[in-house]
Every structure is written in structure tokens, then in C-alpha cells.
């Protein structure tokens, strides 16, 4: 699985409450996405374009179990890479169908606005503007399968364990 897009770069320790503030709880998805990064980067949601990629520092997504991956997907984020992920965010990424690639050193080779290519099968991240590369952790086949299958809801639906969405 290969994803290419324009990078938005974030620092270390971006936490779950910045990604998905409690004020967004219970709102329809299209309203909830307006709250993403409101506290640390107001206005970002109006600038982000479908197909963009997030590049985070260490411990990206630390904190709560909130399903931030679903909000990022709805905003059009095509993938997320970071020097390291908090495991709950990483798990939520796979489970919501948001490609996530842990890549130590990725913030050293990507600046905001540059185009990057993520190869989830090999773990390689390449800066398409500068040619610089960083080697991340390849996603095991089991997880790649959940991801490409559209995440947990799609998988449970295919297995007949939950009903398709109403309508």
C-alpha cells in the first residue's frame, strides 16, 4: 500500500485531547471535524486538503482512546506517519482504516508543505521534493489486511457480525 501527499508537520506529544476535544463528543462527524487541533492550531481544518498527510513527532496521539482516526479520515487525511505513535492512536488508525506508519526520524527529513510517499508494506518514507528517506516499521500483513479492508466496521460487517449502516 502506497500513499503520496502533501505533509503537515507536527511536533512531539500531540495528544488525543488536541486531536479530538471533548467539545466534539456526540456531534455528527462533519461537525466534530471542525474541532480537530482547535487548541493548538486553530484554522488548520480549513487549510487541510483531501489527500494530505500528517507527519508527527514522538508519541503522536498520546492519551485517550478517542477515535481520532475517524476524524482525520473524514478530513481527507490520506495517511499519518510519526517518529513514534502512542499505541492507542496507532490501533485506532488501523481500526478506522487510516494508514499509519511509525518511522523514527521522519520529522528530520520532512518539512511542512513538502510531498511525501509512504510505503506501508516496506515501511519506507520518501520526501519526493528532496529525495531524503527514512526507514520505518513495515506493517505486518495481518494489520495491512484490516487496513486495506476498510477497518473494523467493514470487517465485522463482511463477517455478518454487525448490520450494515441504516439506509
Amino acid at each position, binding site marked *: 500500500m502506497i500513499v503520496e501527499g502533501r505533509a503537515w508537520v507536527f511536533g512531539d*506529544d500531540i*495528544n*488525543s*485531547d*488536541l486531536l479530538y*476535544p*471533548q467539545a466534539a*463528543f*456526540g*456531534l*455528527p*462527524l462533519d461537525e*466534530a471535524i471542525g474541532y480537530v487541533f*482547535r*487548541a*493548538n492550531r486553530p484554522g488548520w481544518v480549513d487549510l487541510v486538503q483531501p489527500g494530505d498527510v500528517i507527519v508527527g513527532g514522538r*508519541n503522536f496521539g*498520546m*492519551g*485517550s*482512546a478517542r*477515535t481520532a482516526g*475517524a*476524524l482525520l479520515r473524514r478530513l481527507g487525511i490520506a495517511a499519518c506517519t510519526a517518529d*513514534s505513535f*502512542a*499505541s*492507542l492512536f496507532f*490501533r*485506532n488508525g488501523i*481500526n*478506522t482504516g487510516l494508514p499509519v506508519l511509525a518511522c523514527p526520524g521522519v520529522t528530520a527529513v520532512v518539512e511542512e508543505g513538502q510531498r511525501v510517499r509512504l510505503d506501508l508494506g516496506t515501511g519506507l518514507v520518501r520526501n519526493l521534493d528532496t529525495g531524503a528517506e527514512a526507514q520505518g516499521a513495515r506493517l*505486518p500483513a*495481518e*494489520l495491512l489486511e484490516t487496513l486495506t479492508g476498510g*477497518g*473494523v*466496521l467493514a*470487517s*465485522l460487517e463482511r*463477517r*455478518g*457480525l*454487525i*448490520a450494515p*449502516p441504516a439506509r
Partner: protein
Amino acid sequence: MAAARPLTAVERILARTSGAASVRPGDIVVCAADRAVLLETLFMPNSLNWRDPLVVAAPERALIVFDHAVPAPSAAEAGAMTRARAFAERFGIEKVDVGGHGISHQIVAERGLARPGELLLCSDSHTCASGAFNCAARGVGGLELLQVVCTGGTWFVVQPTIRVELSGALPVGCEGKDAFLALAARFGSADNCNLEFTGPGVTGLSLHDRRTIATQCAEVNAEFVLFPCDDVVRNTLAALGVHEGGRPGGFTPAVADPGAEYAATWALDLSTVVPQVATPGAVVGNVIAAADAGNVQLDQCFVGSCANGHLEDFAVAAALLRGRHVATGTRLIVTPASQQVFLDAVRAGYVAEIMAAGGVVTPSTCGACFGYHMGVLGDGETCLTASTRNFKGRMGSPDAQVWLGSTRTVVASAIAGRIVDPRTVDAAAGASAAGASAAGQGARVT
């Protein structure tokens, strides 16, 4: 023939629940959960995590707890509870409804459902609280919990384990929160590693302090957190009718094999701990001595949450507040972790003492801990909290400042109106305690 790889206690549980003979860091295992705890938040309108299952793998191992916003602050939460009740009814799942409610990690502790050697999953990041009972417990995403409900299990990457070797005893005036903050100050983030507590220092820690520490380990990004199963745990569970022994019914503690591999050892002498606070934003990198906080004026002080809404916290608060008053311009909010804690605190006289001193005691809920209701912060306000987390915006406005400290530090600071080392107030309180204790409340302050 190669000898079996010695396993850490966490690896033992992952091996048993996945049916593997052995596991090692890096493996992906699919584990069957011994218990799945669902919260009302899963059932909120527009939930991203829930679609009613057509199949429930093990209804007898599931529990639905209403805890985050109880009683319902708005129609949305009320609707979530209605949906949750209908779901519980349809599949015969036990639920903990308004009236007997409490924060899920407290409820499983009170009911003896956090059991040694077992795997417990819940869609809350502080589920590691149950690690105090030698139970491998962790937060998973809501979607994963749905998967657990439907299929009985989910996947984990086996992570490296750090041994936390405790020695000594906590000095008077220090709590589990201070011990945790001292660990975070000294060793930083556990970065997706498991933490196994061990050493002679564990024995002297009350279950209350162990539960605070286990809960807080979410703030150093730990995966599974495990305390040993000792007599403190055994006796507590025995009093609840839960005993060691072969399955089903009885539990088998998880013990590390001799020679098990640990990624690192964190050693802490508890006797070196002093009252600590974490400055706003996060815990790692932000821990200082409470005495060094400077002149931080407080709008709100909060005692509550799964980490510090226990009866012991009420006892500490009541003892400190006896014959004293919360400072003008500061509000103190105290929230019990469960209805049971609330009732016990009322019966012990703690609630009256806190209220007489100008504190507000709310019903049991997560409430202010996650900035949802019952003590939300406004723009520009400063709060010192004994709850779990000090992220920007965590307790309400992103422009509010949230400091973290022990219950003693929070209550002493509420009396002073600014952050103080609680030992200064303790000492002063000691001088007048003889007269005040004539009231005979006899709070257990240990």
C-alpha cells in the same frame, strides 16, 4: 531441545489468552478477553465506534458501566443510556446503571472483576488501573471493543517490558501519586512498554496507592501495567468471594518466570519521594517538587477520578479540612469514584467535613476529570487536580491551566489558595488536631 523461553508476567497472560505456547516482543497475538467493559460513551448519538452487534461472543463476560457523565447532563447522554440499556437487555449483559454506578475501574475493583492473571479490556485509556490487581488490563479503541464484543478478542503487539523495582516506604505526607510522579520525573516515558512492578517497596503500598500508580501509568504511555498478586490483593478479593484456584471461578496469578527478559529496570526508593506536582500540558518532563511551584494562585482544586476518588482520598481531604476552610477565591470540588465510595464517605462523616469547609461534593461521575460536567474550567482559570491528566483543554477551556498533584497536595493548596507542599499544612493541622479530633471523626489518615 531448546529450553522454553522464560516469560514476563504480562507475556504469560498474552500467551495464555492467545493460546500460544510462548510469545516474544514483536509478535502479534490475537487474545480472548476474560472481561470486556463497555461504557455509555460508546452509545452516544453519532458514535463512531458502535453499531449494535448481531452476535455477542460472551455476554457473561461483558459488563456495561455508566460512568463518564452520570446522571445524564443532557439529552444526548440520556439517549446513550437508553440505547445501552436496550442492548444490555437484548443480549442479557449485566449493566451498572444510575444509582449503583461508578467509574468503571472502581466498579470492577469493588466487584472483584479485576482478577489476577486475567485480561480485561475497556474503551478507556486508564483501564490499566486494574493492573493493581495483577490483571492485564488496558484501554482499546471503541471499535476494538465492538470487535471484542462480537468475536471475543482482539490483537496485540507483544511489547517489551520494563521492571519497576520499588524499595523503601513512602514518607508521611506522600501518596501513590507522588511515587508515580517521582518515577515519571526520573525515568520519563515508558513509550509503549509494559510495566511490571516488583520489589520489597510494593508490599508496604496500600491497594489504594497501587491503584493510583497503576492508573497514572497511562500518562507515561505504558501498555500493560502489572503489580504482583500478594496477600493484600488476595485478601481484598477473598473478602469479595473471589479466590485463587483452578478455572473457572478461581484466578491464577501471573508470575514472571525466573530469567525473564526485561528491556530495562527502573529502580525507585520510595523513601526519597517528596510531594510533587506536574506543570500543565503533560506529565513527562514537567514534574517538580510541590514546594518549588512558586506562587500559583488557584481558581479550582479537584479531587476525584478513578485514580483518586477513593474512600482514602475522602479521609485525607476530611482530615486536612477539619477546623479549616477553603480559601476565598478558590473552589474545591470532590467527586467520589462510585456510589459506594460516596455512601461510605457520608457514613464516615467525611462528606460533612468537606462541605463544612466550603468544598463541593458531587455525585460519582468522571465529570470534571475530562472537562465534561461538574467542574469544567473557564478561559484563563488555573486548577490543581488529583485526577489523572493535565493535557491542554483536558478540563474545559484550552486556555485553562491544569496542574496535577496528590489529594493531600490538592486539598492543602485549596486551603492556601495557591500550590503548596502539603506537609506545611499537615504540620499546622497537627498542632490543632488534638482539639478538633474531639469531634471523634477518626479519619484514617495513613
